[in-house]
């Protein structure tokens, strides 16, 4: 039961093969037995899940079931859940029971989904390995000595380990696509503004975007059908009609042109990673697509621009964590400044403090033009590169990461080395366009991801291209040993 897809569970529930209570119980038992080694969950909400499942079964018995009624899933612990601890992977919010549901959470609740709980993540979504979580690192189900990627490492590991068929996730610089690649599952980062950020704890507000991690593109389309759409409560959410993403999955790729950004196939990418990605591209040629080399000349500037913009925005966003209205407060504060400084100094981990300090420095008097404005200008150059490339081709195909999942502890001593992990994903957040990661091979018995990139609001095209690939290949069906 635990390797079923969302679409399969929907069919089985409708056919009465099993009830939502049965599959929910089965998955909760799996989490209890197996998550000790993986640590993908921060909070398991077993009682609430069973209550939701029971209510779903009753709706079905009454003939009121819809597509999502009774389907189990879980949320990244960055999405606020009413009355349930929403920690964002931080000591700072380890006592924060959110007083409301995020829009994304509310939408899944409305649709009748069953949430098993809250998933582990890098602290405040800052990291590429899920090693910065206050709740400890997450293990990659393919090899438990390796990282699952980050920041949505819990979401990717939980899907790969067969705990849930799908999970919400967020992506500010690669945090959906890279963990999906490392764990051999499918991830989509939608266009900036496609999914409401209301109740999604802010890291870098002009880059953050909610999305999902699933076993395949069809399930991602089903999740996007729920998540996407306008929300008056998020002022950056875009008012655009939402198509039925499942309706175009089977469209032919005949005549599609796929661009390969030459800068992404450079020496940063090892020969065996390069081979896995090129094999996937050959598969697309068999499906009728034509391939064309394109150029993103400012690609190398994406990481430097990101490490001004994201820290600057996070230093502003995280100023609300002050020990006054919610979250962690230090013991026995001597005065207000002591309360702020020790609550924040004790409540935040090292990586969060580094990024806040870089941001505070870049925004301090006299440096604004040299850092933040400069980075915003470079950001436009990067966006213009993507727009020019996507005039020549329909979508882009690229690697997701320079290597497969690395070993835990391998990159924690040097933050800059960790930052370079995101070299192929980060520019897309600066441009604001949608991207996916789908499994396309293996290197050293670890999954390799293929990144697909589309123009604004071309999620339907990406899901279509991903689905056709998955109809022709079986990389997405492979599971870790013992799962």
């Amino acid at each position, binding site marked *: 039961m635990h390797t079923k897809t969302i679409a399969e569970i929907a069919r089985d529930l409708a056919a009465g093969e099993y009830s939502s209570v049965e599959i929910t119980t089965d998955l909760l038992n799996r989490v209890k037995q197996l998550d000790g080694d993986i640590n993908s969950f921060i909070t398991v909400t077993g009682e609430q899940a069973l209550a939701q499942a029971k209510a779903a079964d009753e709706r079905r018995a009454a003939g009121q079931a819809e597509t999502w009624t009774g389907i189990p899933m879980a949320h990244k612990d960055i999405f606020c859940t009413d009355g349930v601890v929403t920690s964002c992977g931080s000591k700072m919010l380890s*006592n924060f*029971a*959110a*007083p409301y549901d995020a829009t994304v959470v509310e939408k899944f609740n409305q649709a009748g989904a069953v949430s098993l709980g809250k998933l582990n993540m890098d602290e405040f979504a800052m990291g590429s390995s899920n090693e910065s979580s206050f709740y400890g690192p997450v293990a990659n189900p393919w090899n438990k000595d390796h990282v699952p990627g980050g920041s949505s490492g819990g979401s990717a590991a939980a899907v790969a380990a067969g705990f849930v068929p799908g999970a919400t996730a967020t992506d500010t610089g690669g945090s959906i696509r890279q963990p999906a690649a490392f764990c051999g599952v499918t991830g989509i980062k939608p266009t*900036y*503004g496609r999914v409401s950020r209301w109740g999604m704890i802010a890291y870098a507000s*002009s880059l953050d975007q909610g999305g999902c991690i699933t076993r395949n593109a069809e399930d991602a389309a089903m999740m996007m059908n729920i998540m996407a759409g306008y929300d*008056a409560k998020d*002022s*950056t959410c*875009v008012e655009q009609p939402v198509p039925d993403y499942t309706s175009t999955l089977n469209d032919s790729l005949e005549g599609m042109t796929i661009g390969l950004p030459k800068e992404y196939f450079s020496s940063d990418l090892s020969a065996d990673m390069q081979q896995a990605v090129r094999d996937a591209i050959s598969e697309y040629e068999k499906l009728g697509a034509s391939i064309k080399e394109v150029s993103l000349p*400012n690609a*190398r*500037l994406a*990481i*430097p*621009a990101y*490490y001004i913009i994201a820290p600057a925005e996070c*230093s502003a966003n995280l*100023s609300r964590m002050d*020990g*006054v*209205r*919610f*979250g962690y407060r230090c013991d026995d*504060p*001597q*005065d*207000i*400044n*002591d*309360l*702020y*400084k020790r609550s*924040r*100094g*004790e409540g935040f981990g090292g990586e969060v*403090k*580094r990024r*806040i*300090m*870089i941001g*505070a*420095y870049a925004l*301090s008097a006299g440096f604004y033009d*040299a850092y933040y*404005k*400069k980075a915003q*200008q*470079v*950001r*436009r*150059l990067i966006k213009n590169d993507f727009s020019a490339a996507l005039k020549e081709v329909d979508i882009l195909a690229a690697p997701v990461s320079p290597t497969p999942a690395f070993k835990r502890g391998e990159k924690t001593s040097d*933050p*800059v080395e960790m*930052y370079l992990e995101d070299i192929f994903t980060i520019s897309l957040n*600066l441009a*604001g*366009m949608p991207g996916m990661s789908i499994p396309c091979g293996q290197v050293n018995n670890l999954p390799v991801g293929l990144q697909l990139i589309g123009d*604004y609001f071309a999620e339907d095209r990406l899901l279509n291209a991903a689905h056709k690939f998955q109809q022709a290949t079986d990389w997405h069906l492979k599971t870790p040993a013992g799962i």
Partner: protein
Amino acid sequence: MALDQQQVRDIAELARLQLDDNQIAEYQKNLSSILDLVDQLSAVDTSSVEPMAHPLDAVQRLRADAVTEENQRDHFQQCAPQTENGYYLVPRVVE
């Protein structure tokens, strides 16, 4: 660009972050290497480039100036560390 230890202390003060003395050297090293990374931007000619704040160049959306939220003070204060009579309590600020 290398920061000195006093600059690290000043930034931490700006950001209201208490750092232990024995951590200053490590922050100095790591923050300096991050600034080295971002300094690559200074070599790029951006003289005629408009800064980009929003991927879709959207403007701030406005709504009618009407009351849409009800008062939920008690509910929202349930997650506060310390409150009294509807106020958030902090150490004395004014003597």
